[in-house]
């Protein structure tokens, strides 16, 4: 039997329980993607029910369909352009008035709507009685009662969807905005029809309404498609707006919003469900502690500290297992495949490179687990509430605090965590400055250099780098706010939703989605980049072009050993030294080595030679690679940050000023390639290249000043 299809768009306020309803309907049959052209996440899924294939698209959670934010434009454009058969609006039944405001705006679009009154049973327990059938008649839309977290009402909702589809859905009630406004809507509609203005999928009445509300999105669209007649239309709209202002002494947008809320209030009053305003809920009692004027901040600090510990301390165990797993895999491959290029590519290039990215997965999982719990419980809104004063001063938003904190662990989850910011400008600034929070991978570099030059005061020196990072972040945030992302940070008008116990299912689903995106996208890109880096460090092969005949030297040492004039210890040491020298020459001969020489002039004014230049370059793969590159460069096998000899050699070669300057340089340029891959996915190519260019320039300029000025004094 051929299946009939129904497309349903799921709309609703943030915190209405929309996602839970979506999960209940579609189960595991979900796909996550992005809406075209924007970074708003698009989730869709389907379910087979009573011979129908019901496709469900989860729209972004919004309070309204004005063009206030990207989310709202996306939700609105989806309904207008994709014309779903039915919109299901999930309504938080404990907060009908404001939730129905969105419903009314969807009804204005003339699409059949079903209202899902979510958490209706909780409202009943609180003693509020809603006469559902009467309210349904007044609004002209079917209403289904659901309880998302108990998976109640899902069947009824699906039944209602099919019923509405089969009856070819009656249009919802048309609300009245008052005679004067209606007259102006009619007048503008007539002009639109007379002048044959191209509207694409829109209906003239709705467009007129939006024009009176001074909706920029609609204005821009009309202007683009009707260049010739638009000025005339705009003029007429302005006449209407001024006329309404004169007779009603108020903005048309206020009058229209008033009419919507008035309509809702009228319907609610008639069905005896007026909202009570002065009751103390459990949620308020929790807030008396968590956002308390004195205890609020310390509690917040403690929770953040716990989260930080959880993500990085608990994450350290599985990270070790993954690390061991990858080195076992490398050993296995080494044993199976004979020595040569293919082995080197597999072991050094692919396993090393990809392993270095996968190793962060435990952090990502735990972090997003924490974020999901914070978000679903309603505490995230309180974080923004408590921290906004500080963050606002530096041109950021209260919510920016969380990704900034995460950045001290690893910049990758921090970039991803910036998603909690609704406003695009806030999100981009937060991502751009997150780079300056010293991540865990930079610490080994600091330890190596601080240890080499400032043995007694190494701790303080490292701490100073962290502090400089924070100061730079604050300054750059300010700079971005007055240049590229001009204007106030987005207005802080935010709901503080009631506290709720998060459901396991939604927390796990959330975490899994994010983790999978990380593994899939960052993984594929990193695989490619690892191969490129390996090629750069391997080719051109030196072949027989060594400066001295090392083969002969080795033979000589072997002969001495066999003759008994060398102890076994000395013999091994001599061999190691020769091999190290060979490694050094191979590296210098490779493309990477030549690049190091080639870019040396750029680094000269900073006091860096070609070795530091190539170390910085290799740090692009991941900052901790700087340490191992320095090790290779100084011909020390198994280099790590605690190697005494490596420290000594570095200390012999460079001055403390150069050492400190190199730490600064490492702090300031963009974190790593995996980080940039994520940056691109979150913000696009343009922002990624700006981040790369800006941080390189900043690192260069700061290091230049520090070295040149510092040289005068030291």
């Amino acid at each position, binding site marked *: 039997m051929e299946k009939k299809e129904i497309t349903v768009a799921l709309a609703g306020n943030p915190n209405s329980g929309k996602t839970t309803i979506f999960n209940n309907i579609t189960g595991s049959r979900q796909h996550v993607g992005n809406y075209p052209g924007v970074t708003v996440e698009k989730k869709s899924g389907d379910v087979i029910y009573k011979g129908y294939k019901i496709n469900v698209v989860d729209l972004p959670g919004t309070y309204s369909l004005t063009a206030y934010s990207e989310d709202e434009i996306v939700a609105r454009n989806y309904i207008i352009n994709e014309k779903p058969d039915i919109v299901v609006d999930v309504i938080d039944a*404990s907060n009908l008035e404001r939730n129905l405001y969105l419903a009314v705006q969807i009804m204005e679009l003339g699409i059949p709507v079903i209202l899902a009154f979510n958490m209706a049973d909780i409202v009943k327990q609180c003693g509020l009685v809603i006469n559902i059938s009467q309210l349904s008649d007044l609004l002209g839309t079917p209403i289904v009662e659901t309880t998302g977290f108990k998976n109640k009402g899902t069947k009824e909702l699906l039944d209602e969807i099919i019923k509405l589809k089969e009856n070819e859905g009656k249009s919802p009630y048309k609300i009245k905005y008052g005679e004067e406004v209606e007259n102006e809507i009619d007048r503008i509609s007539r002009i639109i029809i007379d002048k044959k203005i191209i509207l694409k999928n829109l209906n003239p009445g709705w467009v007129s309404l939006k024009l009176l509300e001074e909706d920029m999105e609609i204005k821009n669209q009309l202007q683009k498609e009707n260049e010739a007649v638009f000025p005339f239309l705009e003029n007429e709209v302005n006449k209407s707006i001024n006329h309404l202002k004169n007779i009603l002494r108020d903005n048309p*947008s*206020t009058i229209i919003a*008033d009419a919507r809320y008035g309509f809702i209030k009228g319907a609610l009053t008639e069905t005896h469900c007026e909202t009570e*305003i002065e009751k103390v809920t459990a949620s308020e009692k929790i807030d008396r502690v968590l956002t308390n004027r004195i205890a609020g901040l310390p509690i917040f600090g403690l929770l953040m500290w716990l989260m930080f510990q959880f993500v990085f301390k608990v994450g350290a165990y599985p990270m070790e297992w993954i690390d061991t797993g990858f080195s076992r895999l490398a050993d296995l491959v080494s044993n199976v495949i004979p020595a040569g290029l293919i082995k080197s590519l597999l072991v050094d290039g692919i396993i090393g490179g990809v392993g270095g990215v996968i190793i962060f997965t435990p952090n990502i999982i735990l972090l997003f687990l924490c974020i999901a719990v914070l978000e679903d419980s309603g505490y995230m809104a309180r974080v923004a509430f408590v921290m906004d*004063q500080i963050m606002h001063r530096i041109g950021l938003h*209260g919510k920016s605090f969380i990704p900034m904190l995460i950045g001290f662990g690893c910049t990758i989850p921090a970039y991803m965590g910036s998603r909690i910011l609704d406003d695009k400008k806030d999100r981009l600034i937060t991502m751009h400055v997150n780079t300056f929070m010293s991540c865990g991978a930079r610490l080994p570099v600091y330890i190596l250099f601080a240890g080499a030059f400032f043995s007694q005061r190494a701790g303080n020196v490292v701490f100073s780098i962290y502090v400089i990072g924070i100061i730079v972040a604050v300054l750059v945030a300010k700079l971005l706010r007055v240049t590229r992302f001009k204007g106030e940070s987005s207005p802080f008008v935010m709901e*503080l939703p009631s506290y709720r116990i998060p459901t396991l299912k939604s927390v796990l689903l959330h975490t899994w989605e994010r983790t999978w995106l990380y593994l899939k996208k960052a993984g594929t890109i990193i695989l490619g980049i690892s191969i490129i880096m390996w090629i750069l460090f391997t080719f051109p092969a030196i072949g027989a072009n060594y400066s001295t005949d090392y083969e002969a030297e080795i033979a000589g040492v072997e002969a001495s050993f066999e003759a008994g004039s060398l102890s076994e210890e000395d013999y091994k040491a001599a061999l190691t030294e020769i091999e190290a020298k060979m490694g050094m020459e191979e590296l210098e001969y490779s493309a990477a080595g030549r690049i190091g020489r080639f870019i040396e002039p750029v680094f000269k004014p900073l006091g860096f030679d070609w070795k530091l230049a190539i170390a910085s370059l290799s740090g692009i793969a991941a900052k901790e690679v700087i340490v191992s590159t320095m090790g290779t460069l100084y011909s020390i096998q198994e280099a790590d940050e605690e190697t005494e000899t490596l420290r000594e050699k570095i200390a012999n070669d460079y001055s403390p000023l150069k050492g400190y300057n190199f730490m600064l340089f490492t702090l300031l340029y963009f974190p790593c390639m995996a980080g940039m891959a994520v940056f691109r996915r979150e913000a696009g190519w343009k922002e990624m290249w700006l981040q790369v260019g800006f941080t390189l320039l900043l690192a260069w300029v700061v290091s230049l000043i520090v070295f040149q000025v510092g040289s005068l004094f030291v």
Partner: protein
Amino acid sequence: MRLNELKPKESCRIIKIHGSGTTFRRLLDMGCLRGEKIIVSKVAPLGDPMDIIIRGYHLSLRKNEAKEIEIEKL
């Protein structure tokens, strides 16, 4: 009188929303309209933003945004 001048536990009624642009639009959408009753619930630990109860739910806003709301104290 403006909303930002109120202290926790005080209540008022909205007379007019001033300002323009996104803040103005956002306040309308969130139901801040003439005649609505507001109770100030609390102020954040650092003194800004503030949390109000309107239409039965909690809304937090910066004092800067609250300044746009003209009120009469009840």
